[in-house]
């Protein structure tokens, strides 16, 4: 059996201390197999982004273990980070940089040699239809173009695991469809992808594995088919599960 692309074991993340303490992620365990298109769902503040931040190194886990392709993200963080690409929910970029600069710098940080880096940048610029905008400052780009630049930046080092935190927020329907086609193509090519989104038709279309996180805990996990049994859509099933969980907590 091959090593899973991602293993999360008893992850707990607590922000603050004392009275201000907030448990963002409460003892979750999760496995994402190699080649999966994994949908991580949950309401705002459920713990999705915190989980992603713990995987990528933006946040420090309070306890538990995360392995990316068998590599511990805390103990062997430098190695683990070469395996992950992140397109975050918020535009965490230098707004005065251009799309090609963003990709160039990120590729450089990942130690991709110059010629190889620029070949990839040219490919990504072309793939995301950014040719006309490659030297335009990020702040001047439309929402959709910004998202595409962020995706290009996440892919420039050809990560084994691509994490997309709401990658189509603010993207128009046509561009969203283009993006879906590209993501599907990448996944079919073997790339493992974790996707969070509030557009549940997107999850239904793209993902083959789904987990729902609510109040920092995994409340459901299974294949898309399991979620859609009895003829329900992913959205209907999601609402059913989260409402039942919220009711149970009252």
């Amino acid at each position, binding site marked *: 059996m091959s090593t899973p692309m991602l293993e999360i074991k008893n992850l707990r993340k607590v922000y603050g201390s004392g009275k201000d303490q907030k448990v963002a992620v409460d003892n979750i365990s999760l496995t994402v197999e190699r080649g999966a298109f994994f949908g991580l769902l949950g309401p705002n503040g459920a713990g999705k982004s915190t989980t992603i931040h713990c995987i990528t*190194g*933006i*946040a420090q886990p309070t306890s538990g273990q995360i392995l990316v392709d068998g590599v511990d993200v805390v103990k062997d963080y430098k190695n683990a*980070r070469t395996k992950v690409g992140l397109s975050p929910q918020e535009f*965490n*970029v230098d707004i005065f940089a251009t799309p090609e600069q963003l990709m160039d710098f990120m590729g450089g940080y990942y*130690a991709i040699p110059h010629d190889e880096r620029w070949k990839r940048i040219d490919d990504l610029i072309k793939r995301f239809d950014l040719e006309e905008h490659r030297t335009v400052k990020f702040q001047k780009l439309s929402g959709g173009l910004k998202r595409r630049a962020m995706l290009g930046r996440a892919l420039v080092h050809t990560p084994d695991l691509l994490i997309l935190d709401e990658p189509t927020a603010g993207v128009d329907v046509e561009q969203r469809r283009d993006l879906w086609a590209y993501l599907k193509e990448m996944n079919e090519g073997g790339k493992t992808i974790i996707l969070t989104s509030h557009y549940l038709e997107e999850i239904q279309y793209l993902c083959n594995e789904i987990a729902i996180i609510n109040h920092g805990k995994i409340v459901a996990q299974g294949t898309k088919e399991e979620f859609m049994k009895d003829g329900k859509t992913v959205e209907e099933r999601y609402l059913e599960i989260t409402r039942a969980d919220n009711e149970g907590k009252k």
Partner: protein
Amino acid sequence: MHTNWVGLYTMFRREVQRTMRVVVQTLLAPVISAALYLFIFGTVIGTKIEDFAGVPYISFVFPGILMLSIVNASFASASSNLYFMRFTRGIEEMLIAPFSYFEMLVGFVGSAVVRSLMVAFLILAVGILFGAVSLVNPLAFVFYIAAISAIFAMLGIIVALWAEGFEQLTVINTFVITPLTYLGGVFYSVTFLPPLAATITYLNPFFYFADGVRSSMIGYSEANTFAGLCIIFALVLGLGGLLTHLFKIGWKIRS
């Protein structure tokens, strides 16, 4: 894993681009300030003052002016770079990239040193135009310039991590760095001071920085060189160790 040399070079390259993006603020302003200092203290006042330590007053004062510019450039570069990255969350680019904590430190400090070397080079050119430059020990000169840049870059990083607003970013510079620099013998010899003020000056680490640069340029020193080197090494190692620890625990940058 091996040292991420390409990543470090990318950080330096990015700082050069950032410097050139706001060239008036980053390069032109310090050059104009230095030229004004040289004109006023060197040409206007300096010609009325007798040679000091065997050199014209303009040559005596030039190392201090150069140090002042380097201090400001490295502190401003490091503090604004990191604070801006925290503010825009651009720091996350660094956190997810394969940099060790020590490499992050080297990258941020090295970037600031690169900018201060650019400033130093331009001010040396201005100094040459004013006939104020001499260099008796080029190796020591490079050492002092690099070490002083690194120290103030590290202070800038600490302030950038600590600051919660733009005002806090300037507080340390205004109330600590600037007074200590001006009172550290940048424009005068410690022999000009009354005994008590001279004693206090010897307790000011900035005095040893200015003296080190001056001794490497004109060969005249008023401080104990060994004590100066000890202060410089202690600061580089102490601040470096502290910052590596702060990056490791992710203070103010990792949630």
